[in-house]
């Protein structure tokens, strides 16, 4: 059973890696944006899914990564790789400086504090001349979608392996203990502040790398799109749809939801958006614990699964 699963994952991975060989340009471009979204979802999974802190600030990491690459390549004429490292450094510094005070907050308050951080960063960056202010930065073009695709895939594999490692490491168990009962975790000797900040930084590193790749790929960067709150909500939806606190849930969630919104946006865009909103509402009502939970329990309960969910969660 376990060997079968590993073989299956390897086959899917090989098919994904070879996609540029047989896919059209449109498919490859769709692939890049889907893979990057999956990386963001996987990053959010570390802080939101495993640690239980619903961060609305992960788009800040993404923006910092994008600006790291943008500033390094446009203003300092440094290579892309240096820009990626610079972006990661910015994200880690941000996680450590703001993680300590903000991670003391719980629940909705944490969500809103992180939400405000995104707004503040967007406003600050639009006033910094080095970052191109409101106008933004135009990066040197590189027409190599294949490279961007494979880089995104490697990044997704790295993020997923990290999350898989979390499920079997002392660090990961510490995070789950914090999610389940933070006071209890303290009693058990978990240094909760250190664990939470490290989880925040780890999520930040992957989000920043995704932001860096995205910036170089689309060659344009401005504060509004780099610190877009919608992006943050998208990652949360993808994780919650797939199954928070699971290794593969966020990936499955982002692949399915990306495919749906891509299919729909070939029709009229506003109807696509409308439908996306309806999908979110219906999914939250019918499967509040994500696809992973549906797969675990559907075969036992059948269609009653959905009715059961409503019964347990309504007042």
């Amino acid at each position, binding site marked *: 059973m376990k060997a079968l699963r590993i073989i299956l994952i390897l086959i899917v991975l090989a098919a994904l890696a070879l996609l540029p060989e047989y896919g059209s340009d449109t498919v490859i471009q769709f692939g890049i944006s889907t893979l990057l979204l999956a990386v963001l979802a996987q990053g959010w999974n570390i802080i*939101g899914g495993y640690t239980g802190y*619903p961060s609305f600030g992960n788009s800040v990491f993404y923006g910092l990564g994008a600006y790291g690459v943008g500033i390094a390549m446009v203003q300092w004429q440094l290579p892309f790789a240096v820009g990626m490292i610079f972006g990661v450094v910015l994200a880690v510094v941000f996680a450590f400086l703001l993680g300590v*005070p*903000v991670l*003391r*907050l719980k*629940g*909705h*308050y944490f*969500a*809103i*504090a992180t*939400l*405000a*951080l995104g*707004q*503040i960063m*967007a*406003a*600050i960056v*639009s*006033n910094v001349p080095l970052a191109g202010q*409101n106008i933004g930065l135009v990066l040197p073009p590189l027409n190599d979608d294949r490279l961007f695709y494979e880089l995104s895939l490697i990044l997704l594999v790295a993020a997923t392996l990290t999350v898989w490692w979390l499920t079997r490491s002392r660090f990961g168990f510490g995070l789950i203990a914090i999610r389940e009962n933070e006071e209890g975790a303290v009693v058990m000797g978990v240094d909760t502040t250190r664990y939470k900040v490290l989880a925040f930084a780890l999520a930040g590193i992957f989000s920043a790398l995704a932001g860096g790749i995205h910036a170089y790929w689309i060659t344009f960067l401005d504060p509004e799109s780099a610190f877009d*709150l919608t992006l943050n*909500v998208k990652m*949360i*939806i993808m994780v*919650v749809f797939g199954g928070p606190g699971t290794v593969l849930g966020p990936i499955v969630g982002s692949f399915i939801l990306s495919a749906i919104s891509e299919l729909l946006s070939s029709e009229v865009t*506003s*109807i696509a*958006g*409308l439908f*996306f*909103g*309806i*999908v*979110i*509402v219906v999914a*939250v*009502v019918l499967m*509040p*614990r994500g696809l992973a939970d549906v797969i675990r329990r559907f075969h036992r309960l059948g269609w009653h699964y959905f009715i059961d*969910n*409503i019964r*347990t*969660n*309504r*007042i």
Partner: protein
Amino acid sequence: MDLLLQVLINGILQGGLYAIVALGLALVWGVLNIVNLSHGAFIMLGAYISWYSFHWLGVDPFLGLPITAVLMFLVGYAIQRGILNLIVRSPMFNTLLITFGLEVVLTYLAQLVFSADFRTINPSYSGRNMTVLGITIPLVRLAACVMAIVLTLIMWYFLLHTRLGRAIRATAQNLSAARLYGVEPRHLYAVTFGLGLALAGAAGGLYGTVSQINPYIGATLTAKSFAIAIIGGLDTPLGVIAGGLILGLIESLTTLYIGPTFADVASFGVLVLVLIIRPTGLLGRTA
């Protein structure tokens, strides 16, 4: 000196309007523990209802506020009863997600139905000013601010001194005990959310008289409402008035002394600082 005074007055006028923008959000959050990410989108909807009743039916925007509020109450009652009541006990960020989904639906619906054009509600008196001691006060802004504060005070009285208001507060404190005393939570939750949206509707009508409206104003208004509700605290509508005034003053002072592009940095910076130092709000009780 005159300039500073003028800026302070502008800040207060804006702040009064901010209070009612945030009041519905604070009510729903404080009582139902639902953080409504679609709050701003409902304000947008209220603004459009007000626009249509003014341009199609010729109803004065201030006199039309009750119509907008009643319509929005019905919308809110239906949404809570039909959708939100179904997920009240599911994991916390599901309420964030579902209200975000509603925000998406509303924004795109508005785009389809109302188009993306900018609109303004401009009754014949909209350009008139009053001058007191060399300070210009736009009449519409003054009326909007006064109306906002009056509605907030009515809400405060309602929650503290009416039977229904007490039932709502009792449910907020202890759901199962309230049930024992014969309160029907499903209905009461729907009434509370309806009231939240009625306030959002009124806020939208007032907002439409002083600013332009389009389908995308919702997100900013939601973010501002968070800032106001957190700065002021969720316990009392008076805190929300204080939060609104503080935010209005911060924005106008930052615009005067540092520059308009820093207004958002300042207001959200204060929000984060308040959260870190005093998470229950400046006027809220200590946790």
